[in-house]
């Protein structure tokens, strides 16, 4: 796979994990702005990454998620459970897509529907804009081909150009673009967008409705719609407006309507021609200026004076804020920018230079006194100048365009905000020492590389073991004792280094159990919500480490146990209340290292398991006989749930809920040489304890000989080695057995089990070698010809055709280069 794609997948998984974690954390702190920002950033970056490739399905979902979180971040939507649920689902879908990409380097075609549905469901959470502005087509009959009344407003020059292009074969289209009112918060820039429309010939911005009074005008809402005449094709326009398809209507224009015969009176054309020039030329041609009602001159000027007063009062308030001294620079600049713009609107050049001088002084002294002083003294003058009805009409008309309410406010904001952030960044930068802490110096390596290194070290172990043989030959065959000693000396050095290497590579393969634990918060939350139970999850010892393979093969059994606990162990809040327990159940998952084993405990304070029920079921299923029914104690009875065949079908409702039972858990754990025990107290809770080796990489095996061949038996299976005289063998019901320390032990010949015709050979004292092994809870004696040494070796699974041989769990290379087959004891008996 292309390395960039690999990088993308690995990073996507990290991000997805991070997003899930953040979402879970937000359940506890739904208004934590830091968390929301971080969450938004993760989704945003992930979306950006997906854009590098052609994965539109993924980008679409993430884009919707980003939009949604953007609104949460701005406080326009409140965080909710439902929102978290949908986002988690979306992230799950993204993970599935990642799996597709990993397998086939592309997203399965069947995902397109899911992706669209998911994006839809995310967007459904984005509230509709309070609809004073109905759908664009409806509000403007001008958008329908029949009417196009605005066509009459198109100036002569633009008409001629349109007709010319039309004769040149271009189709003409009328675009009505009505941005949603909160489009600014979605990152849209409708004015820019409209002006950049391909093939634009003419355009006008019209207010959706009569604009409110200046004092009530919310400058953060877009109250305009755009009418555009363009010579671009429909496809081109659809492509250009692809992010806002619902806000745009595109209709073809019949060129005949543009012929001079149907044109409007010249005067009208002239008037709008000016407007159009302004629009194309780039000046913000404010829509309300032409309509400013002349008769309300006095009313308007009073209103302006009041608005100005409020603006100036706000500036004074801003100047007097002293909560965050590091922001004062930004505040000063912002206030000064507003004042300068006001002064500019009033045409007061002197005031501008005064303000600028005051700002420079304030910035250098860190005091706000001078600007405050200017506000006090210059205020009256400014208000009088700006709101005076005697101000020249040109000025009044000019004002809304370049004056305070719109553009200058915006300019102040853009000037002010970055200045503030720069100031706070400066502070952040000053705390660098602590900032440095959270970036772990770790390296991501492909597992295949580690495995290769591991194999190489394994081979090194084997080849190093050839040295003692060589030393022996040097001495016995060639009689060079000196050389032999030197070889032995070198061997011990190499031996030590190889041991350390082996240890080091084991360390590399070590993984913290948090790798599996981290998915539990989500799992527990989802299941307990589905079941209507209240569960508090406690994770302990997440940093405990074990070999990667162990950790990975532990995931499924653990999930199964956790599901079981939630499903059948913990009770519903009502039941718990009735039992006098806390309504919220506690599920503890704890990991710890004990000697060379990792112990994982899953403890719940639920209703526990009734040993009597288990015993009865086990008896009914024929797992235990009548004698055992009376004999076994409660603890043993509870552990019967691990027996194959117990927790299936008939007892589903009591124990497991699914077709798979706890025996699956046991066999999975035993496959990695682990053990699992359960302890339960009726009414108080259940605790399951899994004990695992730290590492599977090196297996201790006992080498035994049978019919001249060597076999390895994992030490985990070996109980002891004994020699039994032939005379002590008994035959019970056609089975060989012997009495060992008062217990009857069944005996089986390894030769027979492996299909070797030879009989077990006794030694010179007529004793047979018996290897006592335990498997599946029973002890059994294996008759072999002889015992050899116990060695640690690196077991390799059988590959290819040999993988079907279940009698062997694997093979290993011996020091002399021969191959040792390792028996799978559970399978052969």
């Amino acid at each position, binding site marked *: 796979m292309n*390395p*960039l794609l690999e*990088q*993308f997948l*690995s*990073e*996507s998984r990290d991000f997805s994990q991070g997003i899930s974690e953040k979402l879970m954390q937000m359940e506890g702190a739904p208004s934590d702005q830091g968390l929301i920002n*971080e969450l938004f*950033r993760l989704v*945003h*970056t992930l*979306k*950006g*990454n997906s*854009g*590098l490739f052609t994965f539109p399905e993924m980008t679409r979902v993430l884009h919707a998620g980003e939009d949604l979180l953007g609104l949460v971040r701005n406080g326009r939507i409140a965080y909710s459970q439902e929102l978290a649920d949908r986002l988690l689902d979306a992230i799950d879908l993204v993970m599935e897509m990642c799996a597709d990409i990993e397998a086939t380097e592309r997203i399965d075609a069947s995902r397109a529907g899911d992706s669209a549905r998911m994006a839809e469901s995310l967007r459904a959470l984005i509230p509709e804009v309070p609809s004073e502005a109905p759908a664009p087509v409806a509000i403007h009959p001008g958008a329908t081909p029949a009417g196009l009344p605005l066509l009459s407003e198109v100036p002569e020059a633009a008409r001629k150009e349109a007709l010319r292009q039309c004769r040149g074969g271009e189709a003409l289209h009328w675009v009505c673009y009505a941005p949603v009112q909160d489009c600014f918060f979605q*990152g*849209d*820039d409708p004015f*820019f967008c409209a002006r950049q429309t391909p093939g634009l010939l003419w355009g006008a911005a019209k207010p959706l409705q009569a604009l409110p009074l200046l004092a009530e005008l919310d400058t953060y809402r877009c109250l305009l719609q755009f009418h555009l005449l363009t010579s671009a094709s429909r496809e081109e326009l659809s492509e250009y407006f692809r992010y806002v398809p619902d806000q745009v209507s595109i209709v073809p224009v019949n060129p005949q309507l543009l012929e001079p015969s149907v044109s409007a009176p010249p005067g009208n054309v002239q008037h709008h021609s000016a407007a159009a020039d302004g629009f194309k030329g780039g000046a913000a041609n404010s829509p309300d200026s032409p309509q400013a009602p002349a008769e309300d001159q006095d009313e308007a000027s009073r209103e302006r004076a009041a608005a100005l007063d409020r603006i100036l009062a706000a500036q004074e308030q801003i100047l007097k804020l002293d909560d965050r001294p590091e922001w004062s620079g930004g505040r000063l600049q912002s206030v000064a920018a507003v004042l300068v713009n006001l002064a500019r609107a009033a045409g007061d050049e002197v005031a501008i230079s005064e303000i600028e001088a005051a700002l420079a002084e304030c910035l250098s002294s860190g005091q706000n006194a001078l600007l405050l002083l200017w506000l006090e003294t210059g205020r009256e003058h400014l208000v009088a100048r700006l709101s005076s009805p005697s101000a020249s009409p040109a000025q009044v008309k000019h004002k809304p365009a370049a004056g305070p309410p719109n553009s200058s406010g915006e300019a102040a904001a*853009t000037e002010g905000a*970055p200045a503030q*952030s*720069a100031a706070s*960044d*400066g502070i*952040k*930068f000053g705390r*660098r020492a602590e*900032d440095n802490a959270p*970036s772990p110096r770790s390296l991501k390596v492909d597992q295949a590389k580690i495995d290769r290194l591991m194999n190489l070290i394994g081979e090194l172990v084997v080849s190093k073991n050839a040295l003692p043989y060589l030393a022996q030959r040097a001495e016995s065959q060639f009689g060079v004792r000196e050389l032999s000693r030197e070889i032995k000396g070198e061997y011990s050095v190499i031996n030590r280094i190889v041991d350390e290497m082996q240890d080091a590579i084991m360390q590399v393969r070590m993984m913290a159990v948090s790798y599996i634990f981290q998915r539990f918060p989500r799992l527990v939350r989802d299941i307990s919500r589905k079941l209507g139970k209240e569960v508090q999850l406690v994770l302990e010892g997440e940093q405990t480490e074990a070999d990667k393979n162990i950790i990975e093969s532990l995931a499924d059994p653990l999930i199964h146990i956790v599901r079981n606990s939630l499903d059948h162990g913990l009770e519903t809040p009502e039941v718990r209340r009735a039992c006098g327990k806390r309504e919220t159940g506690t599920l503890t998952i704890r990991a710890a290292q004990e000697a060379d084993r990792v112990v994982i405990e899953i403890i719940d304070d639920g209703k526990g398991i009734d040993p009597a029920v288990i015993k009865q079921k086990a008896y009914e299923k024929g797992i235990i006989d009548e004698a055992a029914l009376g004999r076994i104690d409660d603890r043993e009875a509870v552990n019967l749930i691990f027996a194959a065949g117990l927790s299936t079908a008939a007892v589903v409702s009591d124990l497991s809920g699914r077709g798979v039972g706890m025996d699956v858990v046991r066999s999975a754990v035993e496959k990695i040489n682990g053990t699992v025990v359960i302890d339960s107290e009726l009414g108080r809770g259940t605790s399951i304890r899994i004990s695992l080796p730290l590492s599977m990489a090196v297996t201790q095996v006992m080498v035994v000989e049978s019919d001249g061949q060597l076999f390895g038996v994992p030490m985990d299976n070996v109980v002891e080695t004994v020699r039994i005289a032939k005379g002590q063998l008994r035959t019970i019901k056609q089975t060989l057995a012997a009495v060992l320390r008062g217990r009857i032990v069944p005996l089986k010949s390894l030769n027979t089990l492996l299909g070797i015709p030879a009989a077990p050979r006794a030694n010179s004292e007529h004793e047979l070698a018996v290897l006592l092994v335990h498997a599946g809870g029973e002890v059994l004696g294996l008759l072999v010809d002889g015992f050899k040494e116990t060695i640690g070796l690196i077991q390799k699974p059988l590959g290819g055709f040999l993988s079907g041989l279940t009698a062997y769990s694997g093979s290993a290379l011996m020091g002399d280069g021969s191959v040792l087959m390792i028996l799978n004891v559970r399978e052969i008996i």
Partner: protein
Amino acid sequence: MKRVLIVDDAATVRMYHRGVLESRGFAVEEALNGIEALEKALETPFDLLLVDVNMPRLDGLGFLKEMRRQQIPQPPAIMVSTEAAARDEMAACHAGANCYLVKPVRPLQLLAHARLMLGEANQ
């Protein structure tokens, strides 16, 4: 060899940009955020900066501003962002960026701008 500093928190994007630039003989260094970038820029001068806007700890705009505030000589800077909005572009230019590209940046587009910024447009 011209040295480029890629500042981006997304490893995938860094790798992608690095691949494009290295294929045309640029020497590339990476930083994960503005703070790291500042440290690198203080250590050795670069010929070109390729800066993401949205980053943890110190974002792209903050980084350029901080460079200016600390009077570290700033090489030409290309700002990259997923935001296509004009005001983001404006903010980037105010912060000292010489050019603003919208992600995903196509390889040729990136190279053309890199050369342009380095005054190698005609070579």
